[in-house]
């Protein structure tokens, strides 16, 4: 199975991605996550002004068969939320790195990015997960 990987992003083991664009970090869920869940029907997001803590739940991604937490890959304050996802949850399946970004945060601790995997390491990780039989 060929998954898309964004070379500019860094990845968490729980399959969220982060891409730093200027002052903010853009966060979303990766292609492999949406593949496991199948058709996404709803995304529940935090509110602007919420504080995210790395490793803690920042919202939920719901498909027809499961509702999974999305975990914050970094800590920071939410400055923007992708409200268009509410009416277009299927974007998570179609364009998980582009249109389907979940939140934008101002990082409180940039060193947290070092704990995340880069695209190459992440690609290997995903292959291993797949061989094990999925998440």
């Amino acid at each position: 199975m060929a998954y898309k990987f964004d070379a500019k992003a860094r990845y968490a083991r729980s399959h969220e991605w982060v891409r730093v664009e200027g002052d903010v970090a853009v966060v979303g869920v990766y292609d492999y996550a949406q593949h496991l869940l199948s058709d996404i029907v709803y995304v529940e997001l935090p509110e602007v002004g919420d504080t995210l803590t790395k490793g803690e739940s920042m919202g939920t991604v719901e498909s027809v068969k499961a509702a999974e937490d999305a975990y914050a890959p970094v800590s920071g304050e939410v400055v923007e939320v992708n409200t268009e996802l509410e009416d277009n949850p299927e974007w998570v399946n179609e364009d998980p790195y582009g249109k389907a970004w979940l939140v934008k945060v101002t990082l409180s601790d940039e060193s947290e990015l070092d704990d995340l995997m880069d695209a190459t390491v992440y690609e290997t990780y995903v292959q291993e997960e797949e061989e094990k039989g999925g998440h």
Partner: protein
Amino acid sequence: MDYIPNTDADRKEMLKAVGVKSVNDLFLDVPEKLRFPKLDLPPALTEMEMVQELQALGDENDDLNHIACFLGAGAYNHFVPKVVDSIISRGEFYTAYTPYQPEISQGTLQAHFEYQSMIAALTGMEVSNVSHYDGATAVAEAVIMALQVGRGKRLKVVLSPTLNPQYREVVHTYTQGMGITTVGEDAPLCDLDALADLADKDAACVIVQNPDFLGRLYTRNEMQALADKVHAAGALFVVSVDPISLGLFAPPGHYGADVACGEGQPMGNALSFGGPYVGFYAMKLDDVRKSAGRIVGETVDVDGKRGYVLTLSTREQHIRRDKASSNICSNQALNALAAAVYMAAMGKHGLRKAAELSYHKAHYAAALIDKLEGYAVKGNGLFFKEFVVQCPQPVAEINQRLLDEWGILGGYDLGRDYPELADHMLICVTEMNGRAEIEALAEALAGMSASDTGDLEGQDESDDMEEVA
């Protein structure tokens, strides 16, 4: 008749397949002294004898076919048209299970979709679910939904003191351990401003009942004013409502309710000694994903034909698991169906008629009783089918005499729930109470005044009774 279809030959074959010589051998793992304990049961009865014995036991009960009912307080004696029973007792409906497989459940799904549509229309709300256990559970689920809508940041729940006491108790039970506080139950009775004052930035919702537990009817303007204040504080406005009252009065959806819920028993469900009943729950489309309860949706199949299916299923506990907001995703299918048949059979005009009759008869009864020495009807005069009467003697004593001497089931003893209302009775009158019954109640009460002389005040209400059947 033998209701077990297995023959001896069948049993022999099954024993052989399992590898055992006799049925007794299947119980060898049970210690011998526990295997066939002596039960000291009387000998078995024939079906005929059993029916006669149960009939005799049943005959020892009073029932509403033989005594006049003036008791309400949450469960009501309204007329159940025979068509309700004929529809719900059809095997296809009576034995239908949860419609998780839509391809074999279109009948029950469509019937429940129609139930939802009628409840939404009746309450003036955008969407209804397929029902909860009862009115109390529906209110509790509204609280939980409000907490979800508040994203867990609003931890206060405002409960009106004239919301049914049992509903409030269920809310407390449901919210144990959730870290929320409930306020409002000690506020002055029937004071909407007092409730509005309690709605602040920590309140998830404000819950009122209309007509309330004391029978008082709030106007549309009063309710809208409260709704506006509740919304200004960012909380949800929840109204528990009598569905029959909606045959006459503005529904919660027309005065700003975020949730309209209540007890559906008055529609097509007999009193049945307390249950099973059915809680209806209607809300705004925006809040649907945070609500509990099954929802039936309309869709098309692969051939483009209309069909029905349980939808928004990711809210359910078996999918959300520990993230589910409620552990209830059941409904009262048969009772909801009965309510749906009732609404369809009565229609808008029938429901209005039932409400009008209840309203006029209750007001006639109140006028008669208010004139009696020692009795006084309390409240501001605005009520639907229930009203509060201050009595000259303890309500329990009056009720015992009503039952023993007059074959009348008296009203609810409000002192049980409101210490300040000791000796106050909540009387309920519906379309089922005939004029003679109402006048008998007044006569009986007159005979139990403080002086207990039994003198009857002269009463001639014939002019007022033109509309009463």
